[in-house]
């Protein structure tokens, strides 16, 4: 009991201590060398801006998070549906392979300006699509791999039991693919926030963290820009933590989860 407690305490305390030391060092650097805010503002100045503009940062985070969320939902639904098709139909699998490979190599945000031109600057469509496309790739690749990874012995068992196609899918294929799906989802949840935010750098409606950061920088309010970055960090962590919780629930019966 004491061992686990001290272990847990160290697990939490060590990173917190490191963080405090780093921030203190940062603060000392800025004060001691009298660094200009455009080089780097002090943590205290950033924190002051963060608390002062909390509601504006929350609104901007909410706008970006909404785009990221819809991108995530749309991307995951499409990717899982397409992976299911691809795993059962060889033609679709083979036809999709080059497109998916291409999509996994190019940075999806590069499409943002083109999508703004297609769907207009006044709507969020382009941002949601960038996030959805970015999400699609890792979820599709991992889910497909999971659906195709059935242990030979389990395949034999299903044949021994004369299980129907759907029975085999339900008992062996889907549960076996679940850890793969969650690996893809873990990558996708962070990607959705990053993509939605970076897409804002290229235009679109005047809301969201990405837009707020660029406009704060262009009006020389560097500490405020950093405060928005802090908001982006919080948004990303919330998405990631939510995914971890969903994964824990989804894989509660899987070993090594």
């Amino acid at each position, binding site marked *: 009991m004491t061992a686990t407690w001290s272990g847990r305490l160290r697990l939490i305390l060590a990173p917190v201590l490191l963080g405090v030391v780093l921030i203190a060092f940062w603060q000392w650097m800025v004060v001691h060398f009298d660094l200009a805010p455009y080089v780097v503002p002090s943590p205290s100045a950033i924190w002051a801006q963060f608390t002062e503009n909390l509601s504006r940062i929350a609104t901007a985070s909410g706008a970006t998070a909404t785009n990221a969320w819809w991108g995530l939902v749309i991307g995951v639904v499409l990717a899982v549906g397409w992976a299911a098709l691809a795993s059962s139909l060889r033609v679709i699998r083979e036809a999709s392979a080059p497109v998916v490979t291409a999509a996994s190599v190019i940075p999806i945000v590069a499409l943002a300006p083109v999508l703004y031109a297609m769907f207009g600057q006044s709507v969020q469509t382009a941002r949601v699509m960038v996030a959805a496309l970015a999400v699609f790739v890792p979820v599709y690749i991992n889910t497909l791999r999971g659906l195709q990874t059935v242990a030979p012995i389990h395949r034999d068992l299903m044949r021994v039991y004369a299980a129907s196609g759907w029975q085999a899918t339900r008992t062996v294929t889907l549960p076996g693919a679940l850890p793969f799906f969650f690996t893809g989802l873990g990558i996708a949840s962070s990607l959705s926030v990053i993509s939605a935010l970076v897409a804002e750098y290229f235009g679109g409606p005047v809301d969201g963290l990405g837009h707020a950061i660029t406009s704060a920088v262009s009006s020389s309010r560097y500490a405020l820009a950093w405060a928005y970055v802090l908001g982006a960090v919080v948004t990303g962590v919330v998405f990631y933590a939510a995914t971890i919780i969903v994964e824990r629930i989804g894989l509660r*019966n*899987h070993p090594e989860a």
Partner: protein
Amino acid sequence: MSTPNESTPVPAPTSTSGAAIAVEVTGVGRVFGGRSGAVTALDNVDLTVAAGEFVSLIGPSGCGKSTLMRLIADLDQPTSGTVTVFGKPASVARENHDYGIAFQQAGLLPWRTVQANIELPLELHGTGRAGRAERARELLALVGLSDFGGHLPSQLSGGMQQRVAIARSLAESPSLLLMDEPFGALDEMTRERLQTELLRIRAETGAAVVFVTHSIPEAVYLSDRVVVMSPRPGRVQQILTIGLGAAGDRGEGIREDVQFFDQVGAVREALHGIAPAGRGMDLR
């Protein structure tokens, strides 16, 4: 091929005359086509297993013993010849759930509890929840794992997992058990304990067993008859009748018995008649 089969006294086992036949393999061949040419895994194999009889298939690696078992299970189809199980083609017997099967790997579904794993065949074949739970309880008691129904397979040792796999194979009270080196991956002590347990289970269920192994003592200890096979191409070299008494009467003591050693010697001799001698054999 180098050893002519004149030393093969294939006596029709007395038990089969008149009694029901569990497995009948007639003139079975299996050729695997490969890019580098065809490989004959089995060539003209005949084998009859009577209802309630325990038959072991033994032989060096590549003698086709596992292939033969997979043909009986309809996990693979013969290139020539016929396989019938309880008088039906193997495929029909499989679809009727006429046999239970266990492999060298336990092959449990890792995300299901031990109980849910044992219930799997019953669940797929439409047994109700209460009936499944009842049967699982009986089987868990039979394999000595009553306290572990709620555990996940990963929380169990290899020997315990293998016992779960055996319980699963018995779930539908089959009259035929197919076992492909089920104790092959276990340590010697666990292996001997499970062998004795299998004898007891078999005495209680009265099922016929086709048991693939590469261990001579294991084959002798468990079997009514031992089928010695030779490789390249896989053939039945000799069939030895082991007269150690009924499964229920065999205990650990038999391992020290003179008769046991005689039979082990006889099987070893039959195996050593195969060229190249004893390759890949486990002479423990």
